[in-house]
C-alpha cells in the first residue's frame, strides 16, 4: 500500500530524516513511536507534501507521491490529521465537513458561480454524505456550531470526522490523543478501531499513549534522530533495549 524508500531530509545542518524506509500493507494499522524530535511528524509532512524530501521515494499504491502537489495527494487517497488540530475556526462543523468533500466534487468554478443544475445536484449529494459522517460520529448536536466554539475533545472528534469524510485509503494520524483527557483517550481507542474497520482504511499513526497504541496497531516502527531503529510486532519493538532507552530513558540498573 505505502512504500517509503530511503527518504532523507535536512534543515540546514540538522538531519531530520536519514534514509527512512518503511512499508504499510493494505488494511494494516502501523504505529510510529519515538521521542520528540525523532522526525515522526516530519515524515508525515513529507508524505502529505508540506515538505519536500531531499532524496528517496514514497509510493502510495504504486504512485510516486513526491511528484504530486499536496492537494493531488488527497485525491490519490491520502488523509492526515495534525498534532494540534487544524480546522476552519469560523465555519460550522457541517461546513468543515463539506470542505473535506471538496475533492469529491467535480463541478467547475464557473458552474458553482452560476449555480448550474449539475453543481446543485452535486451539492445535494455532498450534503447527504456529510449527514452520514455526522451520524457515524454522533455530531448532530454540534452541526451548526463554529469550530472555534468547541471543546478540545470535541474538536479532535470533528477533526477525525473531517478526515474520515475525505474517504482516504491511507490515513495518517498525528497523535490523536494529544491534549485529550485520559478518560476520553480510553473512549478514543474503540472509536478509532470502529472508524478504521468502517472505512477499511490503512493507517499510519503517531502516538505516545502506549496502551492506545497497543490496542490499535499491528506493527510498530521506532524512530530516533531521523532513523528507523527498530520495527516489528508492537511488543517486541517496545521491549527492544534501544527503543526503551530512547523513548523512556535508560532503564534503572537492577540491584
Amino acid at each position, binding site marked *: 500500500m505505502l512504500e517509503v524508500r530511503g527518504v532523507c531530509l535536512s534543515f540546514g545542518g540538522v538531519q531530520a530524516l536519514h534514509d527512512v524506509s518503511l512499508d504499510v500493507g493494505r488494511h494494516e494499522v502501523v504505529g510510529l513511536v519515538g521521542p520528540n524530535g525523532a522526525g515522526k511528524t516530519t515524515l508525515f509532512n513529507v508524505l502529505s507534501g508540506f515538505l519536500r524530501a531531499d532524496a528517496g521515494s514514497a509510493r502510495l499504491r504504486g504512485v510516486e507521491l513526491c511528484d504530486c502537489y499536496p492537494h493531488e495527494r488527497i485525491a490519490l487517497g491520502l488523509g492526515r490529521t495534525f498534532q494540534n488540530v487544524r480546522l*476552519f*475556526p469560523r*465555519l460550522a462543523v457541517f*461546513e468543515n465537513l*463539506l470542505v473535506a468533500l*471538496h*475533492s469529491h466534487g467535480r463541478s467547475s468554478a464557473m458552474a458553482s*458561480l452560476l449555480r448550474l443544475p449539475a453543481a446543485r445536484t452535486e451539492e445535494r449529494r455532498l450534503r447527504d454524505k456529510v449527514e452520514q459522517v455526522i451520524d457515524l460520529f454522533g455530531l448532530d448536536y454540534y452541526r451548526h456550531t463554529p469550530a472555534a466554539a468547541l471543546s478540545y475533545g470535541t474538536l479532535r472528534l470533528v477533526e477525525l470526522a473531517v478526515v474520515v469524510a475525505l474517504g482516504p485509503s491511507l490515513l495518517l494520524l498525528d497523535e490523536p490523543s494529544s491534549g485529550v483527557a485520559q478518560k476520553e483517550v480510553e473512549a478514543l481507542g474503540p472509536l478509532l478501531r470502529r472508524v478504521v474497520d468502517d472505512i477499511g482504511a490503512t493507517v499510519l499513526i503517531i502516538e505516545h499513549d502506549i496502551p492506545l497504541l497497543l490496542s490499535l496497531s499491528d506493527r510498530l516502527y521506532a524512530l530516533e534522530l531521523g532513523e528507523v531503529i527498530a520495527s516489528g510486532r508492537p511488543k517486541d519493538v517496545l521491549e527492544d533495549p534501544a527503543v526503551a532507552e530512547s523513548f523512556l530513558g535508560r532503564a534503572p540498573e537492577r540491584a
Partner: protein
Amino acid sequence: MTSAAARLGEGRVTRLESILSRRLPRTTALVVGLAVALVVPLAQSPFWSFVAALTALYVVFGLSVVVLTGLSGQISLMQFTYVGVGAFAAYVAGERNGLPLPVAVVIAGLATVPVSVLVGVPALRLRGMYLAIATLTVADVFVRQVFASRAVLGTASTTGALMTRPSVIESDRALYIAAFALACFASWTVAGLRKGRLGRAFLAVRENDDAATALGVNVVKYRILAFVLAGLYPGVGGALYAYLIGGIAPLQFGFTQSLQLLFGVIVGGLFSVTGAVVAALLAVLQVELFKGRVGLVTMVGLLQLGVLLVVMMRKPGGLVQIAQDAVAWARLSPTRRWPVVVGAVVGVVVTLLLAYHRQDMAARVLGVVLAATAVVLYRLRRRLFWSAA
C-alpha cells in the same frame, strides 16, 4: 410567536414586537424590494436614475471586496484600479475602435483577468498588510503609467478623455436599467457562493490554508481565482461607470477610491451582499446627494468612523452584524428592548434629516448631543434594562 416568547420567559408580547417580528416570506420581500429599487428612481427625474445607477455600480464594486476580503481573506487596495481597467478598456474598444457596446463590456471584463493573474501570483506569498502595500503599489503604477499614457488615451493630453454613450444606454434611465441588471446578477452569484464548492474553498483558504491543503483544496488556484473574480465584477462595472460619468480620468481610479471602497464595505459588512449594498448606499449618499453640504458629509463621515471603530473592536460583520445583533438582543426581552432599538434608529435618522434640512450649527450640536445620549444609555444599559428583567 406566543410560544417563542413564553420559552424565553417573557409572558407578554407587545404589539410592536408582533409587528416587527412577523416574517414576510423572504423571496416576496426580496422581489418587492428589488421592484421598488428599480421603479422608484425611473419614475423620478433622470438625476435620480443617475444616482441609482451610481449606487448599483458601487454595489458591484463592493461585491468584489466581499469576495476577495470577506470570503477569501485577502486585502486589496486596488479594487478601483480594476474599475479603471474596465473603464479604459471600454474607452479603447468602444470609443476609439467603435466596437458595439456588448463587445466593449466583455472586453472590459476580460481585460482585468491578466491584471488579476499578474497580481495574484506574487500575492500568493503575501498576507494582510504586505498584500495591501503591494496592491497599493500596483494601483499607483496604473494611475501614473498605464491610465495616463498617451498610447492608451490616444490624445495629446494625459488628464483623461470624454466618452459618448452608445444609443442603447444614451439616457440615464436606460443606463440605470443596465447597471441594475448587472448588480442583480453579481449579487445573485455572490449570494450563492457560500453554499457552493467555490465559495467554500475560498472560506477554507481564508480560515487556514494548511488545513485546506490537507483536505485537498488547491490553495494556489483558489487564491488566484478570488483575485480574478474580484477583478471581473469591477471590470465589467467599470465600463458602465465610464459611460455613466461620461469620461475617464486617471485620478478617478486611484488607491484613495479603493481605500474608501474597502472601508465602506468593512463598515457595511464584509461577509454578505447586504453589506455591499449598505456600503454603496452610504457612499453614494455622501458623494452625490449631499454634494456641497459640508456639515452633513462631515457628520455621516463621523458616523462611519464611529461604526468603523466599533466594527474593528467588536463587530467584524459591520452594520449588517450590528443590526442582526440588535434584533437578537431586542428579542430576548421584547417589551423593554424593542423601544430602545427603534429609538436608536429613529434617533440616527432624525439627526440626519435635521442636519439635511437645517444646515446650521444647532443641528450639528443636536446631533452630537443625541450621539452622546446614545453612548450614555449604552453604558447604563445594565442598570436601566437588565435589573428589572
